Protein backbone atom coordinates (compact mmCIF):
# COMPACT_ATOMS: atom_id res chain seq x y z
CA UNK A 1 0.00 0.00 0.00
CA UNK A 2 1.53 3.36 -1.05
CA UNK A 3 1.08 6.23 1.40
CA UNK A 4 1.53 9.89 0.45
CA UNK A 5 3.71 11.00 3.34
CA UNK A 6 6.75 12.85 1.99
CA UNK A 7 10.09 11.30 3.01
CA UNK A 8 12.00 14.60 2.98
CA UNK A 9 12.93 17.13 5.63
CA UNK A 10 14.45 20.60 5.70
CA UNK A 11 17.15 22.22 7.86
CA UNK A 12 15.92 23.71 11.13
CA UNK A 13 14.13 27.09 10.78
CA UNK A 14 14.55 26.87 7.01
CA UNK A 15 11.33 28.63 6.07
CA UNK A 16 11.69 31.48 8.60
CA UNK A 17 15.21 32.14 7.33
CA UNK A 18 14.18 31.83 3.72
CA UNK A 19 11.47 34.47 4.09
CA UNK A 20 13.91 36.85 5.80
CA UNK A 21 16.43 36.27 3.05
CA UNK A 22 13.85 37.13 0.40
CA UNK A 23 12.92 40.27 2.35
CA UNK A 24 16.54 41.40 2.12
CA UNK A 25 16.89 40.52 -1.57
CA UNK A 26 13.80 42.51 -2.52
CA UNK A 27 14.30 45.43 -0.10
CA UNK A 28 14.33 48.85 -1.79
CA UNK A 29 17.75 50.56 -1.88
CA UNK A 30 18.47 52.75 1.17
CA UNK A 31 18.29 56.50 0.55
CA UNK A 32 21.01 58.60 2.19
CA UNK A 33 19.66 60.85 4.95
CA UNK A 34 21.16 64.12 3.76
CA UNK A 35 19.92 66.10 6.72
CA UNK A 36 22.01 64.04 9.14
CA UNK A 37 24.96 63.90 6.75
CA UNK A 38 24.91 67.69 6.21
CA UNK A 39 26.40 68.49 9.61
CA UNK A 40 29.21 65.96 8.99
CA UNK A 41 29.93 67.55 5.61
CA UNK A 42 30.09 71.00 7.19
CA UNK A 43 32.41 69.78 9.92
CA UNK A 44 34.69 68.09 7.39
CA UNK A 45 34.71 71.24 5.24
CA UNK A 46 35.67 73.44 8.22
CA UNK A 47 38.48 71.10 9.23
CA UNK A 48 39.79 71.04 5.65
CA UNK A 49 39.65 74.84 5.39
CA UNK A 50 41.45 75.33 8.70
CA UNK A 51 44.15 72.87 7.65
CA UNK A 52 44.72 74.57 4.30
CA UNK A 53 44.68 78.11 5.73
CA UNK A 54 46.82 77.10 8.66
CA UNK A 55 49.31 75.47 6.37
CA UNK A 56 49.44 78.53 4.10
CA UNK A 57 49.91 80.84 7.11
CA UNK A 58 52.70 78.66 8.46
CA UNK A 59 54.45 78.66 5.10
CA UNK A 60 54.16 82.44 4.80
CA UNK A 61 55.43 82.96 8.33
CA UNK A 62 58.36 80.67 7.66
CA UNK A 63 59.31 82.68 4.59
CA UNK A 64 58.99 85.95 6.47
CA UNK A 65 61.11 84.65 9.28
CA UNK A 66 63.76 83.51 6.86
CA UNK A 67 63.81 86.92 5.18
CA UNK A 68 63.87 88.74 8.50
CA UNK A 69 66.64 86.44 9.62
CA UNK A 70 68.57 87.10 6.42
CA UNK A 71 68.07 90.85 6.78
CA UNK A 72 69.09 90.72 10.42
CA UNK A 73 72.10 88.68 9.58
CA UNK A 74 73.24 91.20 6.96
CA UNK A 75 72.74 94.03 9.40
CA UNK A 76 74.64 92.09 12.00
CA UNK A 77 77.53 91.40 9.70
CA UNK A 78 77.66 95.00 8.58
CA UNK A 79 77.67 96.16 12.18
CA UNK A 80 80.82 94.10 12.80
CA UNK A 81 82.79 95.83 10.04
CA UNK A 82 84.22 99.32 10.48
CA UNK A 83 83.78 101.94 7.81
CA UNK A 84 87.34 101.97 6.49
CA UNK A 85 87.29 98.20 5.92
CA UNK A 86 84.07 98.57 4.01
CA UNK A 87 85.56 101.26 1.77
CA UNK A 88 88.63 99.10 1.09
CA UNK A 89 86.34 96.20 0.21
CA UNK A 90 84.34 98.18 -2.33
CA UNK A 91 87.47 99.70 -3.92
CA UNK A 92 89.11 96.27 -4.29
CA UNK A 93 86.00 94.63 -5.76
CA UNK A 94 85.41 97.33 -8.32
CA UNK A 95 88.95 96.92 -9.58
Amino acid at each position, binding site marked *: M*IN*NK*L*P*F*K*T*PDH*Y*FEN*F*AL*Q*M*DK*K*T*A*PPQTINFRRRKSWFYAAAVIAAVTVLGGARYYTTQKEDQKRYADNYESYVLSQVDESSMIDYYINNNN
Partner: protein
Amino acid sequence: MSIESFRGKNKHAAFSQLVRLYQERLYWHIRKMVLNHDDANDLLQNTFMKAWNGIDNFRGESQLSTWLYKIATNETLTFLSSKRNNNTLPIDQMEGNMLQNLQADAFFDGDEAQLKLQKAILSLPEKQRLVFNMRFYEEMPYEQMSDILGTSVGALKASYHHAYKKIESSLMEDERNMLN
Protein backbone atom coordinates in the same frame (compact mmCIF):
# COMPACT_ATOMS: atom_id res chain seq x y z
CA MET B 1 -4.22 38.99 -1.95
CA SER B 2 -5.17 41.39 -4.72
CA ILE B 3 -2.92 42.69 -7.50
CA GLU B 4 -3.34 46.25 -6.21
CA SER B 5 -1.42 45.28 -3.05
CA PHE B 6 1.71 45.06 -5.19
CA ARG B 7 1.48 48.54 -6.64
CA GLY B 8 3.19 51.57 -5.18
CA LYS B 9 5.03 51.79 -1.88
CA ASN B 10 3.32 48.73 -0.37
CA LYS B 11 4.88 46.42 -2.94
CA HIS B 12 7.65 45.12 -0.70
CA ALA B 13 5.40 44.47 2.28
CA ALA B 14 2.85 42.72 0.08
CA PHE B 15 5.51 40.58 -1.57
CA SER B 16 6.93 39.66 1.80
CA GLN B 17 3.49 38.36 2.74
CA LEU B 18 3.26 36.47 -0.54
CA VAL B 19 6.55 34.68 0.13
CA ARG B 20 5.37 33.58 3.57
CA LEU B 21 2.06 32.40 2.14
CA TYR B 22 3.45 30.26 -0.69
CA GLN B 23 7.03 29.35 0.16
CA GLU B 24 6.28 25.95 1.68
CA ARG B 25 3.91 24.78 -1.00
CA LEU B 26 6.29 25.82 -3.79
CA TYR B 27 9.31 24.39 -1.99
CA TRP B 28 7.76 20.93 -1.70
CA HIS B 29 6.49 21.10 -5.27
CA ILE B 30 10.08 21.67 -6.43
CA ARG B 31 11.69 19.32 -3.92
CA LYS B 32 9.62 16.34 -4.99
CA MET B 33 11.08 16.73 -8.47
CA VAL B 34 14.73 17.51 -7.70
CA LEU B 35 14.92 15.49 -4.43
CA ASN B 36 17.90 17.47 -3.14
CA HIS B 37 17.34 20.31 -0.59
CA ASP B 38 20.08 22.61 -1.89
CA ASP B 39 18.76 22.45 -5.45
CA ALA B 40 15.22 23.00 -4.22
CA ASN B 41 16.38 26.02 -2.21
CA ASP B 42 18.11 27.57 -5.23
CA LEU B 43 15.12 27.00 -7.46
CA LEU B 44 12.74 28.41 -4.88
CA GLN B 45 14.83 31.59 -4.67
CA ASN B 46 14.87 31.83 -8.47
CA THR B 47 11.11 31.38 -8.52
CA PHE B 48 10.45 34.21 -6.09
CA MET B 49 12.97 36.54 -7.71
CA LYS B 50 11.31 35.97 -11.08
CA ALA B 51 7.98 36.65 -9.44
CA TRP B 52 9.32 39.85 -7.83
CA ASN B 53 10.68 41.07 -11.17
CA GLY B 54 7.52 40.14 -13.03
CA ILE B 55 4.81 41.17 -10.59
CA ASP B 56 4.47 44.68 -12.03
CA ASN B 57 3.40 43.14 -15.34
CA PHE B 58 1.09 40.55 -13.81
CA ARG B 59 -2.45 41.53 -14.76
CA GLY B 60 -4.32 38.82 -12.84
CA GLU B 61 -5.24 36.72 -15.88
CA SER B 62 -4.80 33.72 -13.62
CA GLN B 63 -4.71 33.35 -9.87
CA LEU B 64 -1.50 34.35 -8.11
CA SER B 65 -0.99 30.78 -6.91
CA THR B 66 -1.30 29.41 -10.44
CA TRP B 67 1.16 31.99 -11.73
CA LEU B 68 3.68 31.13 -9.01
CA TYR B 69 3.31 27.40 -9.60
CA LYS B 70 3.93 27.94 -13.31
CA ILE B 71 7.15 29.80 -12.60
CA ALA B 72 8.29 27.14 -10.13
CA THR B 73 7.43 24.33 -12.55
CA ASN B 74 9.28 25.96 -15.45
CA GLU B 75 12.33 26.64 -13.28
CA THR B 76 12.38 23.01 -12.17
CA LEU B 77 11.98 21.50 -15.62
CA THR B 78 14.62 23.84 -17.06
CA PHE B 79 16.99 22.86 -14.26
CA LEU B 80 16.49 19.13 -14.82
CA SER B 81 16.90 19.51 -18.56
CA SER B 82 20.08 21.53 -18.12
CA LYS B 83 21.42 18.96 -15.64
CA ARG B 84 20.79 16.18 -18.12
CA ASN B 85 22.47 18.08 -20.97
CA ASN B 86 25.49 19.04 -18.84
CA ASN B 87 26.06 15.50 -17.61
CA THR B 88 25.78 13.88 -21.05
CA LEU B 89 24.50 10.77 -19.30
CA PRO B 90 21.82 8.45 -20.61
CA ILE B 91 18.39 9.46 -19.32
CA ASP B 92 17.98 6.57 -16.86
CA GLN B 93 21.49 7.04 -15.49
CA MET B 94 20.77 10.58 -14.32
CA GLU B 95 17.78 9.32 -12.38
CA GLY B 96 20.00 6.54 -11.01
CA ASN B 97 22.45 9.13 -9.74
CA MET B 98 19.65 11.12 -8.16
CA LEU B 99 18.45 8.03 -6.32
CA GLN B 100 21.94 7.17 -5.14
CA ASN B 101 22.43 10.70 -3.81
CA LEU B 102 19.06 10.49 -2.10
CA GLN B 103 20.13 7.45 -0.09
CA ALA B 104 23.09 9.37 1.27
CA ASP B 105 21.13 12.61 1.75
CA ALA B 106 20.93 13.89 5.36
CA PHE B 107 17.56 15.44 4.53
CA PHE B 108 15.99 12.20 3.35
CA ASP B 109 13.74 10.96 6.08
CA GLY B 110 12.32 7.78 4.56
CA ASP B 111 12.68 4.08 5.09
CA GLU B 112 13.37 1.33 2.55
CA ALA B 113 9.79 1.32 1.29
CA GLN B 114 9.91 5.08 0.71
CA LEU B 115 13.17 4.71 -1.18
CA LYS B 116 11.61 2.09 -3.45
CA LEU B 117 8.66 4.38 -4.07
CA GLN B 118 10.99 7.25 -5.02
CA LYS B 119 12.86 4.91 -7.34
CA ALA B 120 9.60 3.95 -9.03
CA ILE B 121 8.55 7.62 -9.37
CA LEU B 122 11.95 8.49 -10.85
CA SER B 123 11.40 5.91 -13.58
CA LEU B 124 8.52 8.02 -14.96
CA PRO B 125 9.08 10.63 -17.68
CA GLU B 126 9.46 14.10 -16.15
CA LYS B 127 6.08 15.53 -17.07
CA GLN B 128 4.31 12.41 -15.90
CA ARG B 129 6.33 12.52 -12.67
CA LEU B 130 5.12 16.07 -12.20
CA VAL B 131 1.50 15.03 -12.68
CA PHE B 132 1.89 12.12 -10.30
CA ASN B 133 3.51 14.25 -7.58
CA MET B 134 0.91 17.00 -7.83
CA ARG B 135 -2.02 14.60 -7.62
CA PHE B 136 -0.66 11.97 -5.26
CA TYR B 137 1.23 14.11 -2.73
CA GLU B 138 -0.46 17.49 -3.01
CA GLU B 139 -3.95 16.12 -3.87
CA MET B 140 -4.29 19.05 -6.23
CA PRO B 141 -7.57 19.29 -8.16
CA TYR B 142 -7.21 18.39 -11.85
CA GLU B 143 -8.62 21.78 -12.89
CA GLN B 144 -5.84 23.60 -11.03
CA MET B 145 -3.24 21.21 -12.47
CA SER B 146 -4.64 21.93 -15.92
CA ASP B 147 -4.18 25.70 -15.41
CA ILE B 148 -0.61 25.23 -14.22
CA LEU B 149 0.57 22.68 -16.76
CA GLY B 150 -1.49 23.84 -19.72
CA THR B 151 -2.84 20.32 -20.28
CA SER B 152 -6.47 19.24 -20.45
CA VAL B 153 -8.12 17.64 -17.44
CA GLY B 154 -8.77 14.45 -19.43
CA ALA B 155 -5.13 14.09 -20.42
CA LEU B 156 -4.03 14.68 -16.84
CA LYS B 157 -6.38 12.03 -15.49
CA ALA B 158 -5.10 9.53 -18.03
CA SER B 159 -1.50 10.43 -17.28
CA TYR B 160 -2.01 10.05 -13.55
CA HIS B 161 -3.82 6.75 -13.93
CA HIS B 162 -0.99 5.29 -16.04
CA ALA B 163 1.65 6.63 -13.66
CA TYR B 164 -0.10 5.07 -10.65
CA LYS B 165 -0.38 1.70 -12.36
CA LYS B 166 3.24 1.78 -13.45
CA ILE B 167 4.46 2.56 -9.93
CA GLU B 168 2.22 -0.07 -8.37
CA SER B 169 3.50 -2.64 -10.83
CA SER B 170 7.11 -1.65 -10.16
CA LEU B 171 6.68 -2.00 -6.38
CA MET B 172 4.98 -5.37 -6.71
CA GLU B 173 7.82 -6.54 -8.96
CA ASP B 174 10.32 -5.48 -6.29
CA GLU B 175 8.39 -7.38 -3.66
CA ARG B 176 8.28 -10.53 -5.80
CA ASN B 177 12.03 -10.30 -6.35
CA MET B 178 12.59 -9.98 -2.63
CA LEU B 179 10.53 -13.07 -1.89
CA ASN B 180 12.34 -15.18 -4.53
